[in-house]
């Protein structure tokens, strides 16, 4: 069935790549110096991406999958494909990606106006679109891995965008290195899977780990391998997802990632890139459903992260850090929903969180400016939505809560606590910013205002969609969040933010996890290298201690050293000096003399060859 949109879905991938190449190459050859052209093309590409994804989502039936693959790597009968594999989940994620990146690009047109190298920024945004779409549409785990790496490279490039500043380049390096843990875990899991399938299943095509036969793959793997091995593979995938999504033991990198510019933080580090972990969990769900304990681990990681990061966020004073911790917490809720097999809620909450968090980031005051009333009100609206009291955030959060079924009281209470804390920190930070920066009556410029309005429209649209398609009821988290707003307001009016003795320092320092890493891992590494260094300087480079260990060889060595070695060394030195004097004459820098040397040497080689040939001939003949 020929269909204009479904057949050309690969344009979603190729347009941003084309634009990235065009901007970088065009800059190199000094065409396309006009910034307007770059802006319009970039916006056009993400708009087209959003349109294509939206209409494909509209046209695609629920069970159907768009597939278009070409062989990329061939080793005997083992083939790795590249191409497109679009099902509903991927299309929803891609739709959110392109809508958010369209809005963020629109925002950064105004944000990066005074920046000199904004073309590079836009090129990287396009590259990000390409790599993220490639990750979402990848037909097998190998392509997922390629784009997984590409996404972290783009993140590195964008955080270190102003690479002249030391703290920014340091932060970009740290983020990249911590992300490597997840990459390593992912590639080891992929290789283990592929190896076992290739050697034991008897069907070589399964070894390429295509997503279409993920069910078969997981069943075969579960049947053929022992349980600990299967759990190890699942654990590696979970670690990869947890690192990408900044979950419990690894959430420290997200705070460093906040060194990036506002649009980058909004697009990469809160809305889309960090959701790649959730996405890969959804894709690998057949694995996790076979071993029930992994699902439990996922949900425990999620709820633990949500709790810890919410506590951490309630004492930070820097707005971006609060939002970073909040991102970790909300992603934890998504993990929790995936662990409870509440897929629809997870996806809905992903979309809602993307729109809300982008709104929150984009309304922050930037570059030490005063905050205007419009931004303040929009920030409060976003905060209301994030805490689950208003439009899309409310619907999605209640959907997650409904997945609990009220069966587990501990989880329900934890959920309410998290909702309370979320509402608490988001309101607190709004009041803190307004107090610190002061509020000014002025309008944000037109482009920024357009992006805000688009975001709010998206939120309302999502709310309308969720409301019409899913049933939900207003439940306990709503009331706990409402209490939090009231509490914060009362505390603010009374001006009574006190610091709880034990919890405050713990929370302010992010549960000392970053310090823990630097104290253990980094210090261990330093100690180890220092030890090696000491060993080398004290023992290896100074041979005398070794020599003095034994008495008899000493005299022998001394004799040899004095009589023989010294003489040799002197000989070498004199020869080297004479040679160097000769060489100095030769190295006159005169080109023609070099030419002559080259000619003489070539002729020498040629005549030597001929003489050798003649000698050989004479031997053969005689």
């Amino acid at each position, binding site marked *: 069935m020929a269909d204009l949109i479904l057949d050309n879905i690969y344009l979603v991938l190729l347009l941003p790549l084309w634009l990235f190449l065009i901007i970088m190459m065009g800059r190199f050859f000094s065409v396309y110096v006009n910034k307007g052209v770059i802006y319009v093309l970039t916006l056009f590409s993400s708009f087209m991406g959003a349109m294509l994804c939206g209409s494909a989502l509209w046209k695609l039936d629920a069970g159907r999958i768009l597939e278009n693959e070409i062989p990329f790597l061939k080793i005997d009968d083992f083939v790795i494909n590249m191409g497109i594999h679009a099902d509903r989940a991927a299309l929803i994620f891609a739709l959110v990606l392109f809508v958010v990146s369209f809005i963020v690009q629109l925002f950064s047109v105004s944000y990066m106006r005074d920046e000199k190298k904004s073309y590079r920024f836009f090129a990287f945004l396009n590259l990000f679109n390409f790599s993220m779409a490639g990750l979402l549409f990848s037909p097998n785990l190998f392509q997922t891995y390629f784009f997984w790496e590409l996404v972290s490279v783009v993140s590195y490039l964008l955080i270190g965008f102003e690479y002249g500043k030391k703290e920014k380049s340091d932060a970009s390096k740290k983020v990249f290195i911590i992300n490597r843990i997840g990459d390593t875990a992912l590639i080891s899991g992929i290789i283990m899977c592929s190896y076992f399938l290739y050697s034991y299943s008897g069907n070589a095509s399964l070894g390429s780990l295509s997503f279409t036969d993920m069910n078969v793959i997981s069943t075969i793997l579960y049947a053929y391998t022992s349980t600990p091995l299967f759990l190890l593979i699942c654990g590696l995938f979970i670690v990869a997802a947890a690192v990408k999504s900044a979950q419990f033991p690894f959430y420290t990198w997200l705070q460093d990632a906040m060194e990036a510019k506002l649009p980058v933080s909004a697009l990469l580090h809160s809305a889309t890139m960090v959701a790649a972990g959730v996405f890969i969990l959804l894709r690998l769900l057949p694995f996790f459903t076979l071993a029930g304990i992994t699902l439990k681990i996922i949900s425990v990681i999620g709820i633990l992260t949500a709790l810890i990061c919410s506590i951490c966020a309630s004492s930070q004073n820097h707005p971006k850090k609060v939002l970073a911790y909040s991102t970790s917490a909300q992603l934890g809720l998504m993990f929790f929903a995936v662990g409870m097999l509440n897929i629809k809620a997870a996806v809905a909450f992903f979309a809602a969180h993307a729109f809300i968090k982008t709104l929150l980031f984009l309304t922050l005051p930037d570059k030490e400016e005063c905050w205007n009333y419009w931004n303040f009100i929009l920030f409060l609206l976003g905060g209301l939505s994030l805490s689950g009291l208003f439009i899309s955030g409310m619907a999605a959060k209640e959907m997650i809560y409904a997945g609990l079924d009220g069966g587990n009281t501990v989880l329900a209470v934890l959920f309410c606590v998290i909702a309370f804390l979320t509402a608490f920190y988001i309101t607190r930070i709004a009041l803190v910013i307004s107090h610190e920066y002061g509020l000014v009556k002025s309008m944000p410029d037109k482009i920024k205002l357009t992006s805000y309005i688009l975001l709010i429209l998206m939120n309302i649209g999502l709310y309308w969609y969720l409301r019409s398609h899913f049933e939900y009821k207003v439940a306990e988290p709503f009331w706990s969040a409402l209490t939090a707003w009231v509490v914060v307001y009362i505390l603010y009016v009374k001006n009574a933010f006190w610091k709880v003795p034990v919890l405050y320092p713990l929370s302010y320092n992010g549960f000392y996890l970053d310090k823990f890493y630097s104290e253990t891992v980094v210090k261990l590494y330093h100690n180890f290298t220092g030890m090696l260094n000491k060993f080398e300087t004290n023992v290896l480079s100074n041979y005398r201690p070794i020599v003095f260990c034994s008495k008899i060889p000493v005299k022998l060595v001394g004799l040899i050293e004095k009589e023989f070695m010294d003489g040799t060394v002197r000989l070498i030195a004199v020869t080297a000096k004479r040679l160097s004097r000769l060489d100095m004459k030769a*190295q*006159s*820098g*005169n*080109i*023609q003399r070099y*030419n*002559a040397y080259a*000619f003489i040497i070539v002729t020498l080689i040629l005549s030597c060859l001929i003489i050798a040939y003649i000698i050989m001939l004479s031997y053969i003949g005689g």
Partner: protein
Amino acid sequence: MGEITVYHYLFLGLALFVIGIAGSIISKHVIKVLISIEFILTGVNINFVTFATYCDTPKFDGYIMALFYVAIGAVELAVALYIFYLMYNKKQSENIEKYGDL
């Protein structure tokens, strides 16, 4: 004066090659050195074309190689002329010996 054989053409190429080598070593003017290098390439080209004509009749690979040599020679000339331009601006001299100080 008998018939002209393949050796005559090969010796012609050799002569041009040796003249080029000698010129590139002896002459002091940069432009002369460049011309000598072109002589070398031309000598090699004559060699190529001769061999192609005499022993490679259906395919003529030597002609194509000669074509590539002309292209590479043009590239080399362009780079050399640019270097000459820079050095001349720096030293105000076209004597190649003055370019030698490292």
